[in-house]
């Protein structure tokens, strides 16, 4: 059955197979050709049901203004976050979130488990790298004026991501349960408690009660590995959705080479245009 096609944006020329020259022989219909045929029809079967290829083509081949390397800071944060997620899963496999077992389980990971210290090191220094990159990314969007119309909401989501990232490092710091992390967390929670209005409630919530007790650690663990990462994942999704929808900014010192046409309104315009695409 031929595939029923929803309208899709065209592929760029370079990806379309070039037409066969007159006089050359058609390729032999061997095993390879058969395999290709099977692959294509399998992909078509899936796509007929999911109808993703249009969106994918749009997302991959939509044009974006030329930009510089600082525009890769956002995706660098994302990669640092992914690295944290993967190393975090492996750390969780050996972690015991109880006041009696936490220190011992981290000691086991560090000193005995295969590549354990390397894994902990990646998670620990990955957090530093991620925090630094978040601040750099924020500085970039600030100085490039990227928070202005129509990207205001993306900035707001970004600030939420900043807070969530800091919450990650605050809650993660307690988990090894050594002297350093224990006392720094006590002080941090107490500082929260001095805040106006919500302060005392927030610190009670973090401690799971008025005193720092056995459930505090498991609460921090749940916040650190379920609540905040889930929220960060969802927020990154919203952030990237807006970025793709609105398009990334152009560095403010770049000007169009041709005068804008009056008809060309619309940020999300996906219409391919022929001018200027290959003249760099």
């Amino acid at each position: 059955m031929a595939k029923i096609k929803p309208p899709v944006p065209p592929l760029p020329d370079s990806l379309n197979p070039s037409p066969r020259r007159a006089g050359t022989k058609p390729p032999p219909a061997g095993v390879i050709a058969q395999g290709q045929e099977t692959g294509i029809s399998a992909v078509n079967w899936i796509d007929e049901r999911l109808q993703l290829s249009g969106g994918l083509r749009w997302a991959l081949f939509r044009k974006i203004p030329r930009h510089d390397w600082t525009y890769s800071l956002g995706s660098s944060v994302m990669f640092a976050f992914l690295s944290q997620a993967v190393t975090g899963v492996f750390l969780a496999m050996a972690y015991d979130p109880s006041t009696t077992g936490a220190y011992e389980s981290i000691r086991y990971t560090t000193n005995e488990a295969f590549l354990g210290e390397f894994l902990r090191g990646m998670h620990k220094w990955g957090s530093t790298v991620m925090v630094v990159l978040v601040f750099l990314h924020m500085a970039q969007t600030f100085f490039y004026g990227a928070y202005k119309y129509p990207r205001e909401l993306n900035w707001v989501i970004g600030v939420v991501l900043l807070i969530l990232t800091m919450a990650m490092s605050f809650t993660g710091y307690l988990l090894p349960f050594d002297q350093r992390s224990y006392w720094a967390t006590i002080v941090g929670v107490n500082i929260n408690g001095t805040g106006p209005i919500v302060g005392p409630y927030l610190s009670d919530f973090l401690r799971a009660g008025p005193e720092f007790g056995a459930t505090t650690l498991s609460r921090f663990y749940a916040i650190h590995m379920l609540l905040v990462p889930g929220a960060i994942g969802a927020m990154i999704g919203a952030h990237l959705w807006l970025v793709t929808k609105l398009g990334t900014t152009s560095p403010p010192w770049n000007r169009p080479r041709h005068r804008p046409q009056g008809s060309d309104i619309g940020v999300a315009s996906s219409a391919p245009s022929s001018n200027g695409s290959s003249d760099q």
Partner: protein
Amino acid sequence: MNRAEKEAYLREYGQLKAEGEPFFPYSVAKDSIMACIVMATIIGMSIILGAELGPKADPTSTTYVPRPEWYFFFLFELLRVIKPPELVPLATIGVPTICIILLMLLPFYDRGPERHPLKRPIATTAGVLVIFAMGYLTYLGASAGSPNEIDMKAPAALAGPALIEWEKGRSVVGQAGCLACHKIGENGNDGPGPVLTHVASRLPEAAIAQTLRNPTAPMPSFKNLETTQPENFKAMVSFLGQLN
């Protein structure tokens, strides 16, 4: 931005976009290279710097001076810069909360059409100042030194048992958390307590011991130390008694 400015922006942006490059491979290539650099950095730091684990948490010891992760130093330093106790809540929660709210609402009060950093002098100056302030506070936090050690040379006149006693007092004072509130030599925080580098020139040993037993708040009392570890208490007092 008013309506005309918005339309002008969208028109110019549409043109820039039309003159741009397809996301794949233009952007994807750059992002992939950056991803490799990020991963290489993390792996390199992990191999070179490792991950240490300190002594196990001990809720009964009150002698440990906490130090947060370095990127929280600037928040911690705010605590020190703002000293009067009635202003402490302002420093700890007030200032960060106000900063976050200002940050979040930025696109709603900075609505001008200009995007070039040099054509937005106020925003750019404010941004640079904030970066310097945070950098400076982080530097202050980082250079406060190891929080439970006092780097001091014994007076040349000391020798034998007196020198040993002095060294012991130096480490007891370091471990006892005094540096959280007092500056001694190069170490510790200047405030909320007075600098102790030259206490002995102000107070005789007996008065120092009396202060430790019966201090004025917020300084905690060290009477317990005297009953449980009298020789440590003595070493502490005699160390302080020689700081003149």
